[in-house]
């Protein structure tokens, strides 16, 4: 009997060990096949470095990795082209680019920072730049890069305490798109002021069409679309609870109450707004130049134009776009070498053209488009565009602004209350 028990116990141990050994063996084989698939990634051999930061000396040169978030195929192909040309142009460095989705980008950078597993270059959304500078993961580029000919706002977005922590990749801003046929049919002129905008929107609103749409989701994207209206009154991002700030909130609330702007805007991303516009459900929209290639491809017969965002007391728009940042502790020399290459006029022109972006370099931007190009109004609008922040706590400020904006749209607060609440939050962040 006793013997039986001991045998049983030994069997149990064997089973236990077997389980682990089984798993272990499986791991190893999977590992091997994982590596095998790495090396067999023929289509993109430059992406087959398994552990980039540790691969100090690959045969093709020192590894330099880039993280970016553009899911659009055209963007990926254009960036890839520049990288391949760069890799072919020299043999000291081997650049590879990894796609990290926009929704995951901030998370992946945070996790990567905790785990010390970061790329050498990140191409990130400009309002987040200051937060990562605060995190201390970006290299100080002051004096290493000449940004003298760049748009001031774009340079500001990567400057903290007078030090340059990045290089603007490309810029964009928001402007007003309008459906020209609808405007002509309703006998309206292109609006330039808030009052005209409201009148026009009313005239354009029908059973199936709403006059105006702007992305109002409760996040950075919504803030991006709201601040031009806020700034146009003379209010700043940090000073909302005053006559100007309240007027901006009240104006938007009024548009919704009058039925000329759909409440659904709080669920529409900028892309969704564009889709509504090309489907003919919306007559005017606030949106950026990056939509133009899609609009031209998906709705070639649609007759639309772009104009400045109508003003309250002054023209205003918001600066968007991406910045290059170099990660400290990574391959800084390699990263800088690549940046020098990719920011040269020839490369910038190529990429901006494919991206539907405007060069952050003003001297390039001004000759980038033909006079009748649909992009040209955006170059004009850029003169009035200001950056968000730069501030390490910008995400919290932005959260307060988009909340206020959403409260008035959904009618859950009056403009006065929404402004007061936002101000209280902002004051607790920015002293």
């Amino acid at each position, binding site marked *: 009997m006793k013997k039986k028990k001991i045998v049983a116990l030994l069997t*149990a141990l064997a089973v236990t060990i077997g*389980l682990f050994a089984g798993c272990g063996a499986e791991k190893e084989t999977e590992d091997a096949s994982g590596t095998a698939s790495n090396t067999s990634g023929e289509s993109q051999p430059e992406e087959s470095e398994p552990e980039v930061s540790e691969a100090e000396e690959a045969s093709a040169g020192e590894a330099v990795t880039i993280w970016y978030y553009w899911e659009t195929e055209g963007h990926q192909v254009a960036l890839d082209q520049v990288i391949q040309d760069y890799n072919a142009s020299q043999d000291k460095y081997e650049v590879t680019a990894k796609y990290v989705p926009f929704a995951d980008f901030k998370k992946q950078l945070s996790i990567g*920072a905790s785990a010390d597993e970061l790329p050498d270059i990140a191409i990130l959304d400009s309002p987040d730049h200051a937060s990562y500078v605060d*995190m201390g993961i970006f290299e100080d580029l002051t004096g290493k890069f000449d940004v003298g000919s760049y748009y001031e706002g774009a340079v500001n977005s990567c400057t903290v305490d007078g030090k340059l922590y990045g290089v603007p990749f490309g810029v964009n801003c928001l402007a007003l798109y309008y459906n020209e046929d609808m405007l002509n049919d309703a006998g309206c002129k292109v609006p330039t002021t808030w009052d005209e905008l409201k009148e026009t929107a009313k005239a354009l609103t029908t059973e199936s069409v709403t006059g105006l749409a702007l992305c109002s989701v*409760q996040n950075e994207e919504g803030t991006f679309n709201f601040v031009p209206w806020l700034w146009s009154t003379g209010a700043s991002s940090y000073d909302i609870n005053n006559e100007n700030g309240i007027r901006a909130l009240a104006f938007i609330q009024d548009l919704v109450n009058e039925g000329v702007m*759909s409440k659904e805007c709080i*669920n529409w991303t900028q892309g969704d707004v564009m889709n509504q516009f090309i489907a003919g459900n919306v007559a005017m929209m606030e949106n950026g130049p990056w939509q133009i290639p899609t609009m031209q491809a998906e709705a070639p017969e649609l007759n639309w134009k772009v104009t400045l965002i109508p003003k309250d007391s002054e023209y205003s728009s918001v600066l968007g776009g991406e910045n290059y940042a170099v990660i400290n502790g990574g391959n800084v020399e390699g990263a800088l070498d690549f940046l020098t290459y990719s920011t040269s006029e020839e490369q910038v022109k190529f990429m901006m053209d494919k991206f539907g972006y405007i060069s952050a370099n003003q001297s390039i931007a001004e000759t980038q488009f033909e006079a009748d190009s649909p992009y040209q109004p955006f170059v004009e609008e850029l003169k009035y565009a200001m950056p968000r922040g730069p501030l390490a706590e910008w*995400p*919290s400020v932005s959260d307060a602004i988009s909340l206020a904006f959403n409260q008035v749209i959904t009618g859950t607060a009056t403009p006065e209350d929404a402004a007061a609440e936002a101000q209280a939050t902002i004051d607790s962040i920015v002293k």
Partner: protein
Amino acid sequence: MGKMKKLFRYENIGILFVFPAFLYMLIFVGYPIIRNIILSFQDVNAGNLVKGTKNFILFDNYMELFSDNVFRSSLSNTLRYTVLCLVFQFIIGFALALFFNRKFTLAKPIRGILLVPWMIPVTVTALMFKLLFATDIGVINYLLRSLHLIDTNVEWLTTPGTAMFALICANVWIGIPFNMILISTGLTTIPGELYESASIDGANKVQTFFRITLPLLKPTVESVLVLGFIYTFKVYDLVYVMTSGGPVNSTHMLSTYSYKLSFEMFKYSKGSAVANVLLLILLVVGMSYIKITTEGEEK
């Protein structure tokens, strides 16, 4: 030898069966749990995530949460959401399990097909429901209008109360197959003879259900409910995609708020504290489950 003998007691052999799985979970989830608890007592944000000192501020993050409106509403949202989802998906799932337990020709194929909602990534399901619930172009409003149940379109996802309703609908849709399949599996453990003898004794259907089916299914029902509670309580993808916690924070859940604090606003410690509150509530649920299920079974 006596000690050895005690260790090798019949019942203790069970540990050997359980230990590998236990060790696995301890390694892969135990460490994250402990790390998360430590993080919630610190003051980690963007400024000191990588370098700089991480100060222990003990319960400050938790205290801060109690005066945070969004936290309080996420807490009550999460509870309301979980309970409502659980009630509907369990009842419907149970009913369907009983229905498909009858031996008609299509029972098995259709029960199999009903599992399909589980094969779709939750993110895609969430987007699909967002489309179904859209105000102007959504088919749900269209159907309700055609049936003259509503006159004007309901702004499902842009009104606080109805947004929660839409989320619950989506979650129940995913949850029905889950409950149905697990209860169906539980039903197969009930010996058919019991029903035969019950019908010989003249018991009617309702009596057999309450006297035989339900008591014998109790362990399954308890497991399904506790798992359902845990999975629903920490819902993330569905809410993030369908409403992102909006409109005006009205559908924020503890998990979405924790994510937002950690990865969008760089308040890592506060985000961890929210996650730990979630854990604490689930711990109470888990302990009650253990207490109920193990009561009286020990010899």
